[in-house]
């Protein structure tokens, strides 16, 4: 377990360095931030001054080397636009994004797995068909459209929920969270549902397919023949065996939901990192883009690590040392 963790850490560090270089190169290739930052009415001297002030007058490789040296010391640079440390900007917005992503995943899991099980156990019933039809809708409707429809329905026509922003927050272990206040929950409901919809459909379909496969297996028939009740057959024998692919997908999707909640965040003006990333890309605010992607990669790596550990819990045949190369 320890050897596995250390090897994983080494690999992760390598991934982080390679990624930061690629992003550096990419942003450099897109364009010159000075074109967007400096007021067009300014003169040439001002452009030269701003270029030097932001360190953009140096060759690209030298800029990257400076970034690496400072990065090792824990300084990921200051935002060109806001002149605050990039990491501070991201960490200030991260709790909102994590809360939204987790809320969406909770909705997706709490509804997706039971609905998928029902649809898998009774594929030809009316309920099963309805669930599947619903999941197709969830898959195919674009997120931004669903978001707008939700706002039009619940905020504009019914007036039940606020159309944008994050509600009142309280501190929980030093992190501002909004799901513990009524105002916060009201603000959270629509964006979380909007973000959950796609993942929900995915989990329903995945659970259904795995369930249909599992119920035909010999061990399920045997369990039934042994006289076990349907609750135990489904809850223990079926569910536990179909969980490995589901946990994998949940892990991957959680990462992507954190990293790419951009559309939902911008429609609901949710003050998270997705909006920060889009704004930073539009402004070519390189320090923020690089720092953001580093944070996201670190989150992905952590989630994958947790998923690997979960495998070994769910399936005693999985040994961590052996799976290290596989993911």
């Amino acid at each position: 377990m320890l050897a596995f963790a250390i090897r994983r850490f080494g690999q992760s560090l390598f991934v982080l360095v390679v990624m930061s270089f690629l992003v550096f190169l990419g942003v450099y290739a897109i364009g010159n931030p000075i074109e967007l930052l400096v007021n067009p009415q300014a003169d040439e001297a001002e452009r030269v001054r701003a270029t030097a002030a932001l360190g953009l007058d140096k060759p690209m490789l030298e800029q990257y080397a400076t970034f690496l040296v400072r990065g090792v010391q824990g300084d990921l640079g200051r935002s060109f636009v806001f002149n605050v440390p990039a990491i501070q900007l991201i960490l200030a917005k991260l709790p909102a994004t994590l809360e939204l992503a987790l809320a969406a995943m909770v909705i997706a899991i709490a509804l997706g797995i039971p609905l998928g099980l029902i649809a898998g156990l009774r594929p030809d019933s009316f309920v099963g068909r309805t669930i599947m039809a619903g999941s197709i809708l969830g898959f195919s409707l674009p997120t931004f459209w669903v978001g707008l429809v939700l706002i039009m329905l619940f905020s504009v026509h019914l007036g039940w929920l606020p159309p944008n922003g994050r509600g009142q927050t309280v501190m929980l272990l030093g992190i501002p969270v909004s799901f513990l206040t009524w105002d916060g929950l009201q603000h959270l409901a629509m964006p979380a549902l909007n973000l959950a919809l796609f993942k929900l459909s995915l989990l329903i379909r995945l659970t259904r397919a795995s369930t249909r496969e599992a119920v035909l297996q010999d061990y399920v028939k045997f369990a039934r023949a042994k006289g076990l009740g349907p609750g135990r057959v489904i809850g223990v024998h079926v569910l536990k065996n179909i969980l490995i692919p589901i946990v994998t997908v949940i892990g991957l999707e959680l990462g992507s939901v954190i990293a790419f909640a951009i559309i939902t965040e911008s429609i609901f003006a949710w003050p998270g990192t997705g909006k920060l990333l889009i704004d930073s890309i539009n402004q070519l605010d390189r320090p923020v883009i690089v720092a953001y992607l580093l944070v996201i990669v670190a989150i992905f790596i952590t989630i994958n690590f947790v998923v690997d550990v979960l495998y070994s819990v769910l399936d005693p045949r999985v040994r961590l040392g052996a799976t290290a190369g596989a993911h």
Partner: protein
Amino acid sequence: MMLRMFKLAAAAAAIAAAPMTAHAQKEREVNIGLQAALTSIDPHYHNLSPNNGMLQHIFEPLIRRDANMKFVPALAVSWKAIDDLTWEFKLRKGVRFHDGTPFSAEDVVATYKRVPNVPNSPSSFATFTKPIVDVKVVDPLTIIFKTASPHVLLPSDLAAVYILPKPVAEKATTDDFNSGKAAIGTGPYKFAEYIPNQRVVLKANYGYWGGEEPWDKVVFKILSNPAARVAALLSGDVQMIETVPTSDIARLASDKRYALSDKVSNRVIYVHLNQRNDKTVPFVTARDGKPLDKNPFKDARVRKALSMAINRDAIADRVMEKKAVPAAQLLADSFYGTSKKLKPVKYDPEGAKKLLAEAGYPNGFTLTIHGPNNRYINDDKVAQAIAQFYSRAGIEAKVETMPSSVYFTRATKGEFGYMLLGWGTESGEQGSSLRSLLATHDPAKGMGVNNRGRYSNAVFDKQVSDALVVVDDRKREPLIQLAAETAMNDTALIPVHFEVSTWATLKGFKYNARVDQYTLAMELKPAK
């Protein structure tokens, strides 16, 4: 339910509109949805339109601009040019900063010292202070500015620099402003809260020298997504939004629960034609794809034809849903330095064909229109529309639009032939824009800094340079008009239209639309 919402909103408006029994028990609060986020509370950190607009609530310059960009006294009550190099300003008496300290000439001196020295500024205000070589205090309410050469834009430059109290100007960092510690000005509102990319909260400054504002509290919410901004207004979450998407204007206008206000802005959408090389020009070829033997954009007849082939009225009516006005020069007629003789070029595809034939292109040619797709109102659709008009005049036009992060870098490098661009004249006078966009490119001398097409005309250069040293406003204006006529009659660039900025409010509110596109709580009043 919806009805109840609007009754509530109307009730709120009624309370706001009720006779002002000073600080009635209910706080008069207003919420405003903004499109663009400001980047700092430091008024000398980033010379950016959203910053300059928002920070006017808290800080004030010596001279302010009204909704039509005309100068009005702010912290200065009067000013005059004593000679070509010396300007005297009389300051306002009895003004206090938010922390109670009285305002005096020393604060102005300290502010002007701070402006060029804000660390890491991505776009400095030094542009506005550089021409000033000395700031002299005559007495606490009189101050003299000395410039090295005649500087006609001095009042305009001063309008961009917000005054800080001396102790703040000497010590405060950008971080101190963002946290609110140093956000101390003389403006009608006080700083209350700032969360980057999310919101700004302001509280009324009851001791304001200009009288009390109708709001106790103003909350600006950053709602960059256009649909989300409209939804926030529809649900009553905000009482006003800026930059109404053109597609929603008709709907809001026909609904009695909302009120719209708009105004022709100081931003012109125009086309620069690449004239850097005599022989070739990027993305322009003969109809059969072969290179042309010379750069057609060097020929004034070709430029004229390209201008005649655009149906400006149709673009303003259809593409911009009437929220644009056809342009003949760089600013609309009401602005200083514009020529009344210049009229938008008439749509005449046949005439354009003839001119092209005269210039040696009877079969037209092929070009690519390059433009941004997230910078100006409907920018990509405008490019598409121009391309269609060109096909009727025998010019085969392709369209390629891209995000502004990519576009402007490439446009500045001269990688495009036909460039759709926009320009907002922040000084409100045409001379500086003519110099920046059309004078022969010589950045060291401040000429043609944004001349991406590299148009060059010695006669025009001289006219502009001569005009911009005449300090007397009345004597200068005809000179600027002459230069504008020279450039526009030579089709130095192709003006397309002026953007019209729009605001939408709930009924019960009235916004006094501004030319400079700023969204200010000072312009928002309860409707009578």
